[in-house]
């Protein structure tokens, strides 16, 4: 009996579907790539920890991390020691303090240590929206020109640093 090509079509479609579903397994759909990749940092002017105006221009010039954090954010507690360690190693980290209380933020940094070169206080949360932030913590990698090159959603773990951020930042240094 001759097998016609279109008789095998359902089987092919079924296998293709299985393959698609298989590839989808283990993918975390909560992690979104940034819409701002390869684009400059959003323009902003916010008060810093001394209530002095701070703009994105002051974050330009170096390959750096921009970390979105808040004292009310539980995962940030886990992340903080890792940021401190990186800062000690000479990594430039800027902070965007998201929808937080000024005094709480000061207390947090005094008690736990301050890994940030400077902190912009986004009390209203609008600048974070410009960055496309949808949860805390999030960490962006910016290049020397101030372009966004990577976004990490969730805790910056030792593993994420070694596997993703560090290699990227090393290559960005060469640019």
């Amino acid at each position, binding site marked *: 009996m001759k097998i016609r090509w279109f008789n095998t079509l359902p089987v092919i479609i079924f296998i293709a579907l299985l393959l698609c579903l298989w590839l989808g397994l283990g993918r975390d759909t909560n992690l*979104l790539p940034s819409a701002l990749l390869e684009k400059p940092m959003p323009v902003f002017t916010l008060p810093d920890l001394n209530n002095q105006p701070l703009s994105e221009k002051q974050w330009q010039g170096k390959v750096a991390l921009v970390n979105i954090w808040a004292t009310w954010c539980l995962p940030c507690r886990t992340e903080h020691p890792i940021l401190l360690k990186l800062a000690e190693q000479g990594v430039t980290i800027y902070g965007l303090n998201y929808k937080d209380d000024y005094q709480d933020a000061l207390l947090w940094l005094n008690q736990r240590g301050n890994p940030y070169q400077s902190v912009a206080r986004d009390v209203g*949360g609008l600048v974070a929206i410009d960055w496309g932030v949808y949860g805390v913590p999030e960490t962006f990698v910016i290049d020397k020109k101030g372009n966004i090159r990577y976004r990490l959603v969730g805790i910056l773990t030792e593993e994420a640093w070694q596997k993703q951020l560090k290699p990227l930042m090393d290559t960005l240094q060469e640019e």
Partner: protein
Amino acid sequence: MKFIYHLFFLMTLFTSVVAQAAVEDEYPFDTPTQQAQFMRLSGQLRCLVCQNQSLADSDATLAQDLRQQMYVRVKEGQSDQDILHYFTERYGQFVLYTPPVQENTYLLWGLPLFLFLAAVVIIGRHVVRRKTL
């Protein structure tokens, strides 16, 4: 017993009216057109925190902030396109429940049509062959 059913029915009716009124109180508009635009757009956008809820449905603080941004923009009289652009610029096309037809979505939009046509051809050939037998 019937009385209880009626009472229950009235209560559910009442709560939905209250919910609708709450939305209108929270986001008062000058014109019904703007009101309609706001309701329409907030139903078309995804809440990023709880991804299977629309901006209109979600109580997440981020959704509230984004609704506020939409409210301000609708009041300013911005077009649907401008407002949707504000969101896609920041959050990518993932925020849209209806993805636009473009290069990387041709497969998505085209596949159902292709499968339908393929089915028509296959069934058609089948039918024709049976008739000629």
